[in-house]
């Protein structure tokens, strides 16, 4: 495993005057050829879960049925993530081009952007761009149009099957898988659900080619990625970086000189303490992230950080499965009891066991990842939780 050097790149936010040309060029290509190139590029989903995008498209293309859908997941709710908002605000045409390439590839006629309610202020501008792009699709002979759907403040709807249930007018409760959305998604039809940034990357790969794209990143983490950087930083905001750097390099660039820990991947990600910065690679061989990077300096109480995350999960758990619903409540009660000295410090080990049970027994990614933050904070900052 070779780490890369921290390198800033500029692909996603480049001035966008090429999207239509990219689309025109790509529509002339065979679907299988597009899929092969996408698989070859190694692109993995940029929402956090990291499924191979080319494979997802391949499965949807091969799924039986005449009616298929393309959904852009703009329900960006992971604490500390705000890159999709920047993309939709600054380069929405690239997102729509990526969706159109997907539609051409899998044979979909209808697409949706599922926008979180918190980003509704973007809708006015976005609708105008969508209308314009839908016209362009028509002119290029592509029978595909995109419309807008809104979330209503539920974090769990970022999970693709919960998102689909929400679009179908139900409670946003994740479904049992399989079947996966690529075979039975929206209205039970084959559906590709990709993150905003993933569609932009598809558009970029269609433009520069897989060979050029593969020059960035590492074997397991190809390409580049947007990072949402916040907390105790020398600079905050959205930064586009090559994948595969060490956390030490990252902190050197963005930290305030007194960094104690970095939460990689948001509340559902992992907390890395200073002593592990050097050995932690940001990418699928180390700690993957949907983009959220929160930096904490030595003035911060990791008890408060953990408590804040647990409150978040307790509220956002959809409640349908017991390990997640009850587990979140018990983890909060547990650390509060330890803090108040009503329980001995050793009780934390019992709570770690509970968090690990939630990881295997919860139905969806929400409950499964509560343990990531919990275990990594408790193990690395135990004394801060106890005293």
């Amino acid at each position, binding site marked *: 495993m070779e780490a890369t050097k921290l390198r800033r790149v500029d692909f996603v936010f480049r001035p966008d005057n090429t999207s239509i040309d990219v689309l025109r060029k790509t529509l002339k290509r065979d679907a299988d050829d597009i899929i092969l190139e996408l698989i070859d590029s190694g692109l993995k989903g940029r929402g956090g879960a990291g499924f191979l995008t080319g494979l997802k498209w391949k499965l949807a293309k091969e799924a039986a049925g005449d009616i298929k859908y393309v959904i852009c997941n703009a329900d*960006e*709710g*992971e*604490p*500390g*993530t*705000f890159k999709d*908002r920047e993309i939709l605000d600054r380069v929405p045409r690239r997102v729509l081009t990526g969706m159109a390439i997907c539609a051409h590839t899998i044979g979909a006629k209808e697409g949706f952007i599922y926008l*979180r*309610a*918190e*980003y*509704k*202020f973007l809708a006015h501008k976005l609708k105008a761009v969508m209308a314009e792009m839908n016209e362009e699709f028509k002119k290029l002979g592509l029978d595909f149009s995109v419309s807008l*759907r*809104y*979330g*209503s*403040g*539920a*974090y769990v709807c970022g999970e693709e099957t919960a998102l689909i249930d*929400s*679009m*179908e*007018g*139900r*409670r*946003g409760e994740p479904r049992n898988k399989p079947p996966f959305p690529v075979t039975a998604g929206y*209205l039970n039809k084959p559906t590709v659900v990709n993150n905003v940034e993933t569609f932009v990357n598809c558009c970029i790969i269609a433009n520069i080619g897989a060979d050029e794209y593969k020059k960035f990143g590492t074997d397991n983490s190809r390409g580049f990625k947007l990072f*949402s*950087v*916040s*907390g*105790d930083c020398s600079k*905050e*905001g*959205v930064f586009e970086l090559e994948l595969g750097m060490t956390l030490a390099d990252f902190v050197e660039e963005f930290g305030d000189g007194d960094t104690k820990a970095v939460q990689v991947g948001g*509340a559902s990600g992992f907390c890395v303490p200073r002593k592990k910065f050097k050995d932690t690679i940001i990418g699928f061989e180390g700690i993957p992230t949907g983009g959220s990077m*929160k930096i904490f300096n030595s003035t*911060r109480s990791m008890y*408060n*950080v953990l408590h*804040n*995350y647990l409150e*978040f999960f307790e*509220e*956002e758990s*959809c409640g349908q499965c017991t390990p997640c619903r009850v587990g979140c409540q018990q983890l909060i009660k547990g650390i509060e009891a330890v803090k108040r000295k009503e329980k001995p410090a050793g009780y934390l080990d019992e709570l770690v066991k509970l968090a690990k049970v939630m990881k295997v027994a919860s139905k969806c990614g929400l409950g499964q990842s509560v343990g990531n933050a919990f275990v990594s904070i408790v193990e690395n900052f135990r004394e801060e939780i106890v005293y």
Partner: protein
Amino acid sequence: MANTEMFIRDLADKHGRRRESLMPILQEVIDARRYVDDEVMVNIAKELDLSAAEVYGTASFYSFIETEEVGHYVIRICKTIVCDMKGKDAIIEAIENTLKIKLGQTTPDKKFTFKTTNCLGWCHKGPAMLINDDVYSELTPEKAIEIIESYMHK
């Protein structure tokens, strides 16, 4: 009220009467009235041929679909970690003092409801809040009071 019946019928004409029309209809009621009451939900159920329980079950799942009466302006301040680190408590105190209500309450004139919410996606510019659909970031107590006062005069 005939008024509500017509309102919901118009929304169903516009968005359709299938199950997948439910969220767009509920969301448009929120835009117009800020919350959905029992009468609205019963009427939606009739139009979409669903049970009222199904409509309530869906509506009550979503934190941005209020099923209890709220004010004309719903203020939602972000309480997630980075906004917390950047001083959201001071903002909350300033707004509570300005509106003379506590978090979770509605002003007696039904103009404002004050709530917390989870990450709004403005961590790099926290503390942040929403007033209905509008975002206000990089808040200070002074700035927050100024914003609230401008809404008081609307």
